[in-house]
C-alpha cells in the first residue's frame, strides 16, 4: 500500500522494472520512477496529481487517461533546442534524466495568475470574442489580439533548429494489423502462422493493449503474460514485423498507411546518427484495425479536477504501473466496466469509498458501497480532488471523500482510421457508441473493441477471423486457430452523458468546453455538429476530441430533440495522434532539402575559387573572382570584356539536351517548333521557338541536325524536364505512329561555350586535325560530330549566346573535367577567361537574347519580336491559338532595349514603364523591364523589357518607375541588340 511517509503511491505487482530506478524532474523537482513507467504513472506514483492547466480558464488539471487520448496532462519535455512542447505525459516513456515542465501557467503551476479567467468565465462563453473587440477597429492588431495571442497557445517552441534527425522508410506487406491488443495479436498470430507477410504496429512500447491494464486471464495465463508470449512468437517469425512505439497515423489511398515509429524518444540521448523518428509508408494488400477503444467520461459539475479520470485509466495505473492515484478512490459509472475498477483496486488494497452507478439495476460485487441509480453532481478540492457530491436515487445528496474518481461513461471504438477517407461511423445502440461504417478505406476491416466487440474472447476470435478473411481475399489460406478461453462478458450499458445541474460540467477539458457552451451554441443556431465544433472549439484541442466529441454531440442531440446518429459526427482526419512535423520532413531539410546537381567542371571551378549560385537544382559558377577584386561587378566586367576582346569559356552543361531520332524526326520537330525544321540541312543548327498549345512561348533553343534522322535539341536549363515531357506527350499521345524516339542526354554530355574572337584559335588546338573548323568549312550555325584531343568523340556547334564568334563543344560527361582543363591550357596564350552566370547574363542582355525573365509564361512570339517565326503553313503546337485576338493586338508589348538618359542611372529590372506626361498609375502602365545589367562594353547600365507597341517607339524617352524601392529614371527606348546589331562578329 502507499507509503505515507514519502507520498509514494506504489502498489505491489505491475509491469514495471523495479530494478531500474529512474530519476526525473518535473517543474524542477527531483522525482523517481521505474523502468516501464510513463511520465504520468511516475508522477502519480509520486503523489503528483496536478500536471497542467486548461487552455482557456487555466483550471488545474491532472491526468484523465492512461493513453494517447490524454487532454490534460500535457507537458514540455526535455530542454533547450530539444524542447518538445505539448507532450502527453501518458505516452511519454520515463527515462533516467527526463526533464519535464508544466505549460501555459504563470508564475507557477500551483498558482496561475491567468486562472482569473475562470472567475470571468461567464463573460468568456463560447464564441464571446466574435461579439466584441470590434471598436475601435485599429485596436485589434495593437491591443486585443496581442493579449489574446499571448494568453493562447499551450507550450512554447524553443525557436531553435530541431537538432534531431528524422528518416523515412517504405514497407510492404500482405496484411497490416493496427494495434497489438488481444484482437491484433490474435490476428497477427493467425496471419503469421499462415506464412503471409505481416506487419503489426502498436503505439505502445509494450504489446498487449488492454491486456496489460487488466487482471483478465487468457487461457491459463494472465492476459499480459499471454500477450508477451504471443509477441515473442511473432518476433521470432521472419515473415512478421512487430513494430512497437509505432502509431499508424493515417489511411491513405489504395492500401497505403502512414506510420510513425518513435525510435529514440524513450532514450535520454539518441545514439549518433540514429533518427529520432521514422515516417513509414506502409503498402498493404489488406489491413485490420485492432486499435481498441477509448473510455469516455461523464460530464458533471466540476468534473475536471485532478484526480478525476477514466475508470479504465485508474485501473490501468493500478494494474500495469502499480500506482494508486490516491489512497481513497470512488467510481462513477453507467456500465459494468466501472465495477472492474472497483474490484481491481479493492483487490490491491486501495480503499474504494463508493461505486456510483447511474443504473437502477447496478450490480453489487461487494467491493464497495454501490449507489444504484445515483450520480455525481459536484466535486471539491482546489488543486486535486478531495470529495464528490453524490445524488442518490431517492434525491438525497451527500459528500463522499475520495482523492481519485474513476469515471466510465462507456467505451468508444477507435473508428478513426475507418473514417480517414470520408467514411462515416454508424451508431450501435447496444453499446451506445459509434462503430466502423460499411464504407471505409478499401481493404480495411476491423476487429475487437475497435469494431465494437468489447469482450476479450470476442477480441481474440474476432482478430483471428478477420485475419483469415482478409488473407482469403488475396488468395492466402490461413487457418483459424482455436483461441484460448477468456472473459466474454456482455456489454451492459445505459447511455448517460451528463449530469444535469447548475455548475459547469466539462466536455472538452483541454479547451474548456462545457455543457453550457453546447446549450448556448444551440440557442444561437450553431446546431450542426460542424458549427458546434467551430463555435465552441469542442474537439479542436490536441486530443482532437477523443474523450469529448461523442458526449458533446450527445448533449446537442438531447437539446435539439434528435438522436445521436441524426446529429452525426464531425470528420475524422489524419493524423490519429499529433505527429512531429520533423518526421514528415525526414532528411529533406537544411542543405539536403533538395538534391544538388553539379556541373562537370564543378571541381575545377571550385579550385578556381568560383562563387556558385543555385539554378534550379544545379549549382553553377556565378563568377570567378580574382586576386584584388573586391566587388562582384569587377569580376563580371572583367569576364565580359575578356570574352568580347579575346576568348572566354563557360560550362553550359545544364541546358537541356534531347536526342531526337527516327525517320520522322524532322516531321516531329516541325510540329514541336513553331518555325520550320523539316528542311534544316544535315550539319546545320537552327534556333527554334517552341509554343505551348495556348500559343504562349514555352521554350527556345538551338537544334542541330547531325544526320538525316538525328537531331540534337537544346532547351533552357529551367525547362529541360518540362520540354522533354511535352515532347513525349506529343510523341505518344498526339502522333503515336510517327517514327521518332527521344531521349534526354543532358547528363550524358558535358558542354562548354567557347566564345570570343579567339575562340576558333583555341579550339583549333584541341580539335583533331582531320576536322576543318575554319569559317568556310564550319560557318555560323554549323554543327558536327568530331574528335578532340586525339580521338575523343565530341560534338561541335557553332552557336552563340554571347554574340561573339562562338562555339559550344560537348564531350561525354566523364571527360568534362579534362576538357575544361585542356581548354584552359590551350587558351592560355589568349588569356582565356572562364566566365560565370553573371557575365553570361550581361552578354545575352547586350545582345537582346530572351531568357527566363522574358520567357515568363505569358509572352508570345510577337512579344519577343519573333512573331514572324510562327509558320502559318504547317501544323505546329500552339500556332492556332496564338492567333487569338488578345495575343495579336496592334498595341502588343514588344521586346525592346532601354538605355538610361543619364548614364549614371541604373536600369532596374521589374520597373514599370510610363509615358512622361501620363499620371503614374496602373491605368497608364506601358510595360515593364525584364532584365537589366551594367554593360562594360557600353559603359552604361542597360535593360531589355516589354513596351506597348515597342517596335515603333525607338528613340522615345519614357519613365522607368520603381516605386517599391523609391527610384525612377528616364530611359531611352532603343534596339535590344546593344552590341553588334548586324551580327558580324558571330559570323566572323
Amino acid at each position, binding site marked *: 500500500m502507499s507509503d505515507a511517509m514519502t507520498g509514494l503511491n506504489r502498489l505491489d505487482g505491475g509491469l514495471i522494472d523495479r530494478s531500474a530506478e529512474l530519476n526525473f524532474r518535473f517543474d524542477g523537482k527531483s522525482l523517481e520512477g521505474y523502468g516501464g513507467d510513463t511520465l504520468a504513472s511516475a508522477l502519480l506514483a509520486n503523489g503528483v496529481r496536478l500536471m497542467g492547466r486548461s487552455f482557456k480558464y487555466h483550471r488545474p488539471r491532472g491526468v484523465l487517461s492512461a493513453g494517447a487520448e490524454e487532454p490534460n496532462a500535457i507537458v514540455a519535455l526535455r530542454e533547450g533546442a530539444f524542447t518538445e512542447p505539448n507532450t502527453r505525459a501518458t505516452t511519454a516513456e520515463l527515462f533516467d534524466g527526463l526533464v519535464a515542465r508544466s505549460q501555459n501557467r504563470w508564475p507557477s503551476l500551483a498558482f496561475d495568475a491567468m486562472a482569473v479567467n475562470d472567475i470571468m468565465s461567464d463573460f468568456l462563453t463560447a464564441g464571446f470574442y466574435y461579439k466584441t473587440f470590434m471598436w475601435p477597429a485599429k485596436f485589434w492588431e495593437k491591443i486585443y489580439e496581442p493579449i489574446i495571442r499571448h494568453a493562447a497557445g499551450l507550450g512554447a517552441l524553443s525557436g531553435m533548429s530541431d537538432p534531431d534527425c528524422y528518416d523515412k522508410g517504405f514497407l510492404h506487406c500482405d496484411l497490416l494489423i493496427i494495434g497489438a491488443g488481444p484482437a491484433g495479436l490474435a490476428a497477427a498470430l493467425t496471419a503469421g502462422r499462415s506464412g503471409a507477410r505481416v506487419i503489426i504496429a502498436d503505439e505502445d512500447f509494450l504489446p498487449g493493449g488492454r491486456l496489460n491494464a487488466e487482471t483478465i486471464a487468457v487461457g491459463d495465463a494472465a492476459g499480459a503474460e499471454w500477450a508477451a508470449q504471443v509477441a515473442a512468437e511473432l518476433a521470432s517469425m521472419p515473415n512478421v514485423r512487430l513494430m512497437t512505439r509505432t502509431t499508424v497515423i493515417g489511411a491513405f489511398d489504395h492500401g497505403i498507411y502512414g506510420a510513425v515509429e518513435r525510435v529514440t524518444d524513450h532514450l535520454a540521448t539518441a545514439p549518433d546518427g540514429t533518427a529520432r523518428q521514422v515516417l513509414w509508408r506502409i503498402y498493404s494488400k489488406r489491413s485490420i484495425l485492432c486499435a481498441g477503444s477509448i473510455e469516455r467520461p461523464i460530464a458533471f459539475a466540476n468534473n475536471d479536477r485532478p484526480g478525476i479520470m477514466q475508470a479504465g485509466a485508474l485501473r490501468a495505473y493500478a494494474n500495469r504501473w502499480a500506482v494508486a492515484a490516491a489512497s481513497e478512490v470512488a467510481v462513477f459509472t453507467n456500465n459494468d466496466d466501472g465495477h472492474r475498477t472497483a474490484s481491481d483496486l479493492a483487490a490491491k488494497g486501495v480503499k474504494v469509498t463508493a461505486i456510483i452507478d447511474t443504473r437502477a439495476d447496478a450490480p453489487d460485487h461487494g467491493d464497495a458501497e454501490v449507489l444504484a441509480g445515483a450520480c455525481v453532481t459536484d466535486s471539491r478540492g482546489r488543486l486535486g480532488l478531495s470529495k464528490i457530491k453524490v445524488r442518490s436515487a431517492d434525491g438525497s445528496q451527500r459528500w463522499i471523500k475520495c482523492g481519485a474518481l474513476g469515471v466510465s461513461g462507456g467505451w468508444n471504438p477507435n473508428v478513426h482510421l475507418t473514417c480517414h477517407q470520408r467514411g462515416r461511423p454508424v451508431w450501435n445502440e447496444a453499446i451506445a457508441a459509434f462503430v466502423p461504417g460499411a464504407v471505409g478505406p478499401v481493404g480495411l476491416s476491423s476487429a475487437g473493441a475497435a469494431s465494437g466487440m468489447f469482450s476479450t474472447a470476442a477480441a481474440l476470435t474476432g482478430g483471428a477471423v478477420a485475419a483469415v478473411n482478409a488473407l482469403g481475399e488475396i488468395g492466402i489460406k490461413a487457418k483459424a486457430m482455436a483461441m484460448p478461453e477468456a472473459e466474454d462478458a456482455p456489454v451492459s450499458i445505459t447511455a448517460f452523458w451528463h449530469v444535469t445541474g447548475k455548475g459547469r460540467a466539462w466536455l472538452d477539458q483541454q479547451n474548456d468546453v462545457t455543457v453550457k457552451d453546447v446549450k448556448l451554441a444551440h440557442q444561437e443556431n450553431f446546431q450542426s455538429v460542424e458549427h458546434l465544433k467551430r463555435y465552441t472549439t469542442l474537439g479542436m484541442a490536441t486530443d482532437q476530441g477523443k474523450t469529448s466529441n461523442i458526449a458533446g454531440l450527445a448533449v446537442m442531440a438531447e437539446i435539439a430533440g434528435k438522436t445521436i446518429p441524426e446529429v452525426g459526427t464531425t470528420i475524422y482526419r489524419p493524423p490519429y495522434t499529433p505527429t512531429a512535423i520533423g518526421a514528415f520532413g525526414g532528411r529533406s531539410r537544411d542543405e539536403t532539402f533538395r538534391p544538388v546537381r553539379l556541373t562537370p567542371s564543378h571541381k575545377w571551378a571550385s579550385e578556381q575559387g568560383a562563387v556558385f549560385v543555385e539554378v534550379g537544382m544545379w549549382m553553377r559558377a556565378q563568377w570567378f573572382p580574382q586576386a584584388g577584386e573586391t566587388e562582384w561587378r569587377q569580376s563580371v566586367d572583367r569576364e565580359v570584356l575578356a570574352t568580347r576582346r579575346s576568348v572566354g569559356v563557360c560550362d553550359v552543361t545544364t541546358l537541356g539536351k534531347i536526342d531526337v531520332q527516327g525517320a520522322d524526326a524532322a516531321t516531329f520537330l516541325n510540329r514541336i517548333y513553331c518555325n520550320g525544321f523539316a528542311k534544316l540541312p544535315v550539319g546545320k543548327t537552327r534556333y527554334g521557338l517552341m509554343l505551348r498549345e495556348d500559343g504562349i512561348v514555352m521554350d527556345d533553343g538551338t537544334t542541330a541536325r547531325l544526320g538525316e534522322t538525328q537531331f540534337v535539341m537544346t532547351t533552357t536549363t529551367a525547362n529541360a524536364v518540362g520540354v522533354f*515531357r511535352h515532347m513525349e*506527350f506529343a510523341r505518344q*499521345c498526339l502522333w*503515336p*505512329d510517327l517514327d521518332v524516339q527521344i531521349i534526354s542526354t543532358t547528363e550524358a554530355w558535358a558542354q562548354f561555350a567557347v566564345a570570343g574572337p579567339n575562340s576558333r584559335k583555341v579550339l583549333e588546338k584541341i580539335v583533331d586535325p582531320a576536322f576543318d573548323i575554319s569559317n568556310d568549312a564550319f560557318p555560323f550555325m554549323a554543327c558536327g560530330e568530331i574528335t578532340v584531343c586525339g580521338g575523343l568523340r565530341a560534338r561541335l556547334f557553332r552557336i552563340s549566346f554571347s554574340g561573339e564568334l562562338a562555339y559550344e563543344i560537348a564531350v561525354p560527361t566523364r571527360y568534362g573535367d579534362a576538357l575544361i582543363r585542356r581548354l584552359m591550357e590551350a587558351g592560355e596564350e589568349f588569356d582565356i577567361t572562364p566566365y560565370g552566370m553573371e557575365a553570361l547574363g550581361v552578354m545575352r542582355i547586350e545582345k537582346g537574347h530572351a531568357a527566363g525573365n522574358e520567357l515568363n509564361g505569358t509572352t508570345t512570339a510577337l512579344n519577343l519580336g519573333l512573331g514572324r517565326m510562327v509558320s502559318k503553313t504547317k501544323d505546329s503546337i500552339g500556332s*492556332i*491559338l496564338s492567333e487569338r485576338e488578345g495575343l495579336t493586338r496592334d498595341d502588343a508589348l514588344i521586346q525592346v532595349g532601354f538605355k538610361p538618359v543619364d548614364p549614371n542611372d541604373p536600369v532596374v529590372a521589374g520597373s514599370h514603364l510610363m509615358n512622361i506626361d501620363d499620371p503614374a498609375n496602373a491605368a497608364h502602365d506601358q510595360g515593364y523591364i525584364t532584365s537589366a545589367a551594367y554593360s562594360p562594353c557600353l559603359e552604361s547600365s542597360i535593360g531589355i523589357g516589354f513596351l506597348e507597341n515597342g517596335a515603333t517607339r525607338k528613340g522615345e524617352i519614357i519613365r522607368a518607375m520603381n516605386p517599391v524601392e523609391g527610384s525612377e529614371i528616364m530611359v531611352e527606348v532603343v534596339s535590344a541588340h546593344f552590341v553588334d546589331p548586324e551580327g558580324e562578329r558571330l559570323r566572323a
Partner: protein
Amino acid sequence: MIIHHPLLGPRDSAEFTYLGDANLIDRPDWQDKKAADKFYEYQYLRNNPAGEHQELWYHEAGDRSWLVVTRNTVTHEITKVELARDVARARGRSK
C-alpha cells in the same frame, strides 16, 4: 495512390506527373474550318466529372510512358490503366 502500370506493375503515384483529362489526346485538325473554336474547346473546357475520369499520367520517374488512367475522382479508385499510345491509336490518331 498506386497506379498499376501496364508494363511495370504497381507503382507509387509519386513516380508520375499528372496532366489532366485524357481528352487532351483528341487534338483538333489544324486545317478544320472551325479550328479556332475547336482548339479553344480542346485546350480550355473540361467535363470535370465527379466520378469516373479518364486522365493522363506520365511516368516521369520511370519508363516515360504516358498512361491513360481511369480513376474515380470521388473515391480515387482506379479501374483501368492503359498506355496512352494505345488509347490514342484506338481513337484514330496516327502520324
